């Protein structure tokens, strides 16, 4: 059921929309971002100006954007979905030619006032496009081969571009996020079984191709896999990140060493401690209590999103809400798994906590779309 068929008279208008926002989600987002500010302040050794203040400013900007997006009716966002996707795709192609080099990858477009990472934009754009696609597609076609291949094509096109940068982490996130929406939309089980089997075959091929002329991944990616499998094999080289991260995590114990007391971070043993590895600082300084609390915040956010999505009778709204929450979930799950040595180091930030502009902005805008869907959700007259 789309908003058009519903009694839109009960949908709030004007400033009443603010009251109708999903406040628990907003509070959770702020709480998580707050943890981020705290940690960035600590990482900089008590210097707010280095990372914490810019991060707060971006959060403010992001929140403002979130409100603007949330105030805009959801049908507008559905209608511009394809546009958003197309723009993101163009940006990805542009970055291929004019991007800024950083850490061996071509990922940014320097806009002067900020560095834009098109792959981040694509994460939300892809979710929106797929949600709009399944909103448009008649239900009985959902599992038809052609109508399955089409979204697959939408997913793989940006994935290939991101892989070329190269950014394995974001590509995997795009594939998983996209796949999740297809699954939610009701695509037949058999497709997923097939793809998972094919994926397993692919992994096999990746390992087979190593050292051959048709090598599928870059050498540094293989090394990351190697060190993931056995970090101690190269404790001073690539395995250093994982080993030191685990030491920081483990040494936190139950309650941690205390705010700004983490030796691993203060003495620079931790790599990229203000970005991808910021979780280890939290773990070191606040211990198990701190990490499990952050995980609880993420868990609550996920649960609220699922319930919000199921309360929306409109396909686009439900799918886009779930898609954003899953993208968010994938971010933190992969990041945590990575720093805890459960997944290879692929360079995925901890959402809203890691220092980084475009990732936070895009995520907040994404939640803006989710809020828009929630505010403008069709309601039955009884006020459900």
């Amino acid at each position, binding site marked *: *059921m*789309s908003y*058009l*068929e519903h009694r839109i008279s009960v949908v709030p208008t004007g400033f009443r929309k603010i009251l109708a926002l999903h406040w628990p989600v907003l509070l959770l987002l702020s709480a998580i971002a707050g943890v981020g500010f705290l940690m960035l302040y600590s990482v900089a050794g008590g210097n707010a100006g280095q990372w914490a203040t810019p991060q707060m400013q971006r959060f403010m900007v992001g929140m403002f954007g979130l409100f603007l997006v949330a105030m805009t009716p959801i049908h507008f966002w559905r209608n511009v979905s394809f546009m958003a996707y197309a723009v993101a795709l163009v940006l990805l192609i542009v970055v291929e030619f004019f991007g800024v080099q950083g850490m061996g990858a071509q990922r940014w477009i320097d806009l002067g006032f900020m560095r834009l990472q098109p792959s981040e934009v694509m994460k939300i754009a892809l979710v929106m496009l797929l949600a709009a696609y399944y*909103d*448009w597609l*008649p*239900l009985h076609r959902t599992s038809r081969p052609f109508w399955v291949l089409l979204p697959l094509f939408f997913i793989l096109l940006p994935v290939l571009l991101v892989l070329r940068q190269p950014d394995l982490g974001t590509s995997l996130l795009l594939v998983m996020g996209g796949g*999740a929406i297809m*699954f*939610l*939309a*009701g695509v037949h089980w058999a497709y997923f079984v097939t793809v998972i089997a094919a994926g397993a075959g692919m992994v096999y091929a990746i390992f087979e191709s190593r050292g051959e002329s048709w090598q599928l991944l870059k050498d540094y990616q293989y090394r990351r896999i190697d060190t993931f499998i056995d970090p101690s094999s190269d404790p001073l080289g690539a395995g250093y990140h994982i080993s*030191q991260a*685990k*030491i*920081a*995590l*483990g*040494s*936190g*114990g*139950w309650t941690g060493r205390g705010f700004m007391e983490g*030796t*691993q971070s*203060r*003495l*620079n*043993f931790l790599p990229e401690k203000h970005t991808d590895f910021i979780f280890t600082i939290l*773990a070191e300084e606040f*211990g*198990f209590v701190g*990490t*499990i609390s952050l*995980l609880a915040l*993420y*868990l609550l956010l*996920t*649960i609220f999103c*699922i319930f919000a*999505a*199921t309360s929306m*009778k409109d*396909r686009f709204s*439900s*799918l886009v809400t*779930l898609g954003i929450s*899953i993208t968010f*979930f994938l971010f933190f*799950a992969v990041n*945590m*798994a990575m720093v*805890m040595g*459960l997944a290879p180091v692929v360079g995925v930030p901890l959402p809203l906590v890691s220092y980084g502009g475009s990732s936070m902005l895009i995520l907040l805008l994404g939640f803006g779309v989710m809020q828009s869907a929630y505010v403008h959700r069709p309601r039955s007259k009884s006020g459900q």
Partner: protein
Amino acid sequence: MRRSPNEIAVSSRRITRRAFLLGTAQLGIMGVLGYRMRQLQVEESEKFKLLADENRINERLIPPVRGLIFDRDGRPAAINTPNYRLTMTRDQAGDVETVLADLQKLIAIEDDQLEKTRTELKRRSPFVPVIVAQNLSWEEFSLVAANAPVLPGITTEVGFTRRYPLGKNLTHVVGYVGPVSDFDLSRIEDPDPLLQIPRYQIGKTGAEEKLELDLRGKAGIQRNEVNAAGRVMRHLDRTEPTAGSEIQLTIDTKLQNYVLARLGDISASCVVMDTTNGDLLAVASTPTFDANLFVGGISVKDYNGLRDNKFGPLRAKAVQGIYPPASTYKMITALAALEAGVITPTEQVECKGHIEVHFNKFNCWNRGGHGKMALQQALMKSCDVYFYELAQRLDNEDFANMARRFGIGVRHDVPLSAVQRGVAPDNAWKVESKGERWLLGDTINASIGQGFVLASPLQLAVMTARLGSGKIVNPRLVNTVDTIPQPSGVVGDLDVNPEHLALVQKAMFGVANRRAGTAYGTRTIWDKYKLAGKTGTAQVSRIRTAADRNNANRPYHLRDHALFVSYAPFDNPKYAVSVVVEHGGSGGAVAAPIARDISLFAQMGQVPPVGAYPKNVRKKVASEQSKIWQHLDDLDTIGTTDQA
């Protein structure tokens, strides 16, 4: 898109179902993450805390000051002299080359030292100090210290270098130190972490080597918190090092110095031992060399010179050299026979110049024969045939046991390098080492200290000390450790029939004081200082021709060793002396005069006046003494100039 209400319901249900399915999966993944957090932070926390401390805490060892070594009069024999040096820390220096150039305007630095510094600076972390120059004079050192503000990264430091103020006198006793080698490390089980410090000095030979654990002391530890780059962020705590023990040796350097001078440049060795407590007063081997050459690395030229010298200056012959004791062993043979009851003091044996046993001819050194004589005469004249006769009555094990009771074939516990055990041969020894049965001929050869018997000068001195005192006297080199006196060397009675011992002692007195004695020519005329001794001439090669009998006709390495053992005063023994002159010739002519002079010096505490000698030798003694004077060091100044 417009849908029918039915379709909407189907769509909504499907999404809800799959959303909860996916939600369950997400929950599961979060459960795994939470479980992993618990595992790392709660279960394995202790391990990671330890690893974190290992990361951040850097333990720097503070080397202890090495213990000093003194002689028995308190003269320093091994000391630590300040080594003024400069170190550079790259991190603080900024432009290394500019600083080095500025430094060279102040003091001269050798090119190879500069090269070494540059490579070290590149190799090490920028926070580690690297030595730029060492062994600076006080003037150079203070010049750099005064200019420190314009030399960023340069630090002045005072380290210690080992020095041996007594120079060549105690080289073979004290030994010397050198940097730890990989070979040293491989030999030591569970090495002290101090040894891992680059170029850490440990004892390489002599007492420095054997008393290493006492001398080394205990390292202190400075614990610092360092960051990932190795820069020290703050000092945590510090344990002060414990200096090594101070060792006082029993060596009397004045006597040792005289002994070395008296032995001269020939290849010889001498041990002087106090028979009343086992103190080793002199342990000398010639030629000797200055131990200071080895500290901080000896030059190739110097080393090759020492190595290729045919007199073997690198060997401490007094404990490492083993020689056939020859006739000095006859006291053992005599006592073994007396104690076994196979001969009486009065039984006479006739010497015809040789005997034949199983168709083998055994010669006496006197081919003309000594005629009929009893034990005392036989010892004084050193008649070989008499002892051949005893040998035929002796059991080889009893014989060897007697030698061991007198310290031959026993490794004495003396803290010197490569102390030799020597050989007191018997059947068991021969079966094990040669794979052959003991033969009567072996006992006959052993009876005059030839054949398989081997003893070091130290063992001969121990034997003589025991003969003179009738006590079990063990050699003792360490007098005090940190001023705590070490136990006396006398550990009990020899348990030899005193009458038998007195008989042998009387014969030894006769050797050096009776006209028939083989060392009558080296007697002392002052009764107070008279010695009892025994000559020995150890055959190195088989004598085949008449011309061979003249020692000087043979090539150096085939000439006889000259030996003499003695104790003095004869009636109240105090000083046991053993002298071995390698390839020196006859014991009576070569070794006995040396032993006599050393014995006199030991008793008088000075170069003996010519009045102590018989008239006919005074001229010769006086000319010898004039030569010795030049070799004597002025010990009152030798230590003080070096210490300054």
